[in-house]
């Protein structure tokens, strides 16, 4: 009798404990994740956030709170936020910023252990060879996770409206590599047909770096360090050189100058407002220099290649966990889920299907707006692609498809620069880098708009670089390269 009672009690207890597991489950871990916008916070962000939590709470016990930050604020304010702890953030994306300086100031958590313990999918992606952390390893520790790229590679290119190719009868072959002289011919032909146009779209207003990489063969500046700190030129090179002194660069400047004088470049190219694509849309220019990857092509455009595609070391960056994060493990679990679950990634990227987008072609992931919804009135339309595995993210453009991207990656992977996996630490030369940065801001936008006499201005530039200590930086970079290259 007694035994029975005991066993019944035991069974009961067992049942109770089984039943009460979900009820007793801890509150989900709450994380704050930055959500980058182009300025305006999407009205339906909270709605999407609720949908996201419907997935994340049951699956990984994480409740996500998106904190909307505009792209510029992210650039201007993240260092202050993170260093002072003025804003709570568990997971953030310092867009287009070299996170090296964050690491130097100890603002970020090293991610190795967090990934190993919480992120099986990320680990698998890394083992697969996806470059999601490889550019962000400092002193042996991983500090950032980037999206899985839909395409890995770059190369010089000139994006131009197809109609101009047809009008001028330019001998266009998508895989042929053209020279700057070929472009001169094209510009001349366009200018002849449209005397009021400036065929070559160049706007250098406020630019702080060179755009030479869009018009040249392989260039690698080691982990996204600025190009004025020295680069490897050519896929096989192991010598750090001053790009600005190279014959190729001088040739580029000579062409820009020639085009400017011939009226192929807008006379206000160094000072005007507006992006090159808005000028092209307004019919002022016919095209512009850009990475030759297929994703850069808008409808009605073709890309004239100026080099073979190649792969090089990319800038450090991606999603990071600040050192003051309250729930770093939960943040990593969330990252892992978004990177593995493409439905979730698409939900965050494009919103709710049927409400913010409709599927037009399931095979290529081509989507469009639902009836009555446009880019301007949509409650959720953010085109910064910063989430998950971008190979599986849908696209609003019919002209892009993953097959093309894969082909480009494949092609580029055959030409890898020697700088891949190597990153430059500027710590010992901060003064020189600061001075060089100011020199480049002074000379490069003017020179690369072709608006000044090279005879006079170019030697000044080179001299200013020397005075600012470029040789010291080159030597330091070469030394770091040699050391890391041997490993």
């Amino acid at each position: 009798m007694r035994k029975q009672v005991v066993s019944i009690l035991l069974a009961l207890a067992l049942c109770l404990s089984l039943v009460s597991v979900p009820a007793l489950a801890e509150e989900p871990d709450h994380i704050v994740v930055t959500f980058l916008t182009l300025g305006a916070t999407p009205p339906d962000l909270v709605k999407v956030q609720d949908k996201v939590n419907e997935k994340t709470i049951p699956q990984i016990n994480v409740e996500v709170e998106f904190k909307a930050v505009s792209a510029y604020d992210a650039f201007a304010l993240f260092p202050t936020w993170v260093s002072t702890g003025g804003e709570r953030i568990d997971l953030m994306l310092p867009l287009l910023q070299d996170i090296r300086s964050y690491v130097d100031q100890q603002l970020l958590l090293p991610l190795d252990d967090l990934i190993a313990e919480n992120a099986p999918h990320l680990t698998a992606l890394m083992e697969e060879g996806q470059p999601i952390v490889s550019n962000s390893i400092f002193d042996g520790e991983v500090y950032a996770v980037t999206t899985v790229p839909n395409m890995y590679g770059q190369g010089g290119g000139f994006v131009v409206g197809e109609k101009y190719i047809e009008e001028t009868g330019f001998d266009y072959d998508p895989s042929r590599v053209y020279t700057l002289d070929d472009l001169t011919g094209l510009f001349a032909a366009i200018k002849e047909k449209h005397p009021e146009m400036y065929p070559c779209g160049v706007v250098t207003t406020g630019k702080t770096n060179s755009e030479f990489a869009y018009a040249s063969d392989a260039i690698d500046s080691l982990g996204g360090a600025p190009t004025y700190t020295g680069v490897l030129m050519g896929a096989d090179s192991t010598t750090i050189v001053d790009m600005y002194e190279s014959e190729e660069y001088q040739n580029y400047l000579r062409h820009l100058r020639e085009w400017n004088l011939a009226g192929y470049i807008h006379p206000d190219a160094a000072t005007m407002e507006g992006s090159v694509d808005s000028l092209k849309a307004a019919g002022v220019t016919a095209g512009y220099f850009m990475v030759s990857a297929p994703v850069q092509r808008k409808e009605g455009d073709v890309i004239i290649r100026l080099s073979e595609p190649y792969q090089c070391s990319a800038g450090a960056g991606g999603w990071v966990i600040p050192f003051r994060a309250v729930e770093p493990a939960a943040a990593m679990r969330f990252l892992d889920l978004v990177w593995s679950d493409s439905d979730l990634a698409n939900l965050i990227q494009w919103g709710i299907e049927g409400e913010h987008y409709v599927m037009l072609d399931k095979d290529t992931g081509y989507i469009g707006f639902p009836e009555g919804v446009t880019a301007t009135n949509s409650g959720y339309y953010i085109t910064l692609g910063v989430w998950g595995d971008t190979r599986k993210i849908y696209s609003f453009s019919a002209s892009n498809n993953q097959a093309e991207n894969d082909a480009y990656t494949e092609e580029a992977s055959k030409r890898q620069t020697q700088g891949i996996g190597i990153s430059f630490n500027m710590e010992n030369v901060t003064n020189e880098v600061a001075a060089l940065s100011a020199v480049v801001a002074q000379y490069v936008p003017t020179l690369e708009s072709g608006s000044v006499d090279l005879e006079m201005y170019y030697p000044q530039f080179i001299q200013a670089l020397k005075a600012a200590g470029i040789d010291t930086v080159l030597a330091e970079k070469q030394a770091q390269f040699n050391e890391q290259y041997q490993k």
Partner: protein
Amino acid sequence: MHTLTKQEKGVKIAAYIILTLMSMFAVIPFWLLVSSSFSDSSYAIANGYRFLPQKTSLEAYRYIVSQWDQIGHAYLITIIVTVIGTSLSLLISTMLAYGLMQPGLPGGKLITGLILFTMLFSGGIVPQYMIYSNYLNIKNTLLGLIVPNLLTNAFSVVLVRNFFMTTIPGELREAMELDGAGPYRIYFQMVLPLSKPILATLGIMAAITYWNDWNNALYYITDTHLFSVQQLLNEMNNNILFLANNSGQLQGVDVTTLPTVTMRMAIAVVGILPIMIAYPFFQKYFAKGITVGAVKG
């Protein structure tokens, strides 16, 4: 009233002519701003702005109407912050100045010195941000727009103190004290009403500071519901410039949804109008005049 001499008449006429020219000089660019806000944006990109819009378009103002939820709200924020901020700023600085003007106030000189010293050195934006955000929690509240601008110019305190010293009649004060009035009553019933000229001057300075501020807002306001008009405009400009400068590295970003230059011009116009309309109402108090500087502590 004496009759004007020939020379005085000449000066008066010259004054009208010169001021008219200066006003035109100020208005012409503003007119260009208004005119460009009524232009078609693609046309403006290709052909620049004209004093008479060549291809008129209401797209910019249609945009403002369509975004009125945000822009109108930003307006409201700007107005609330300007009114509260200016009043608080005046109250705090005049009370401080009134205390400082008391003859024989122990530590008065030291305090004046310490106040003036703040104009020479600052700890920088990061430490200040730490104090406000970590200890005082004014981030993303209206206080975040009000507090950092309260006494941006320590000098105004000295200005008010000097004004009090030269204009508050000692006899009147003694008479009120004999009637049993305490310092607070004297301050509110006599000192403030007599100080309208300086209140108007400082008030306008403070109001313009609040109206135009975006720098503090950048740090302390990240919630778009609390954006002021200037911050909204500034954010748009910054983001557009940032995206244009980095377009090569941001593949597939759709910039067509961003406000065009003409839209930003329209917001600038809309942001300037209210303060222009309000400004003349303050001016009548200037008639009494103030003197900056002079009396030392």
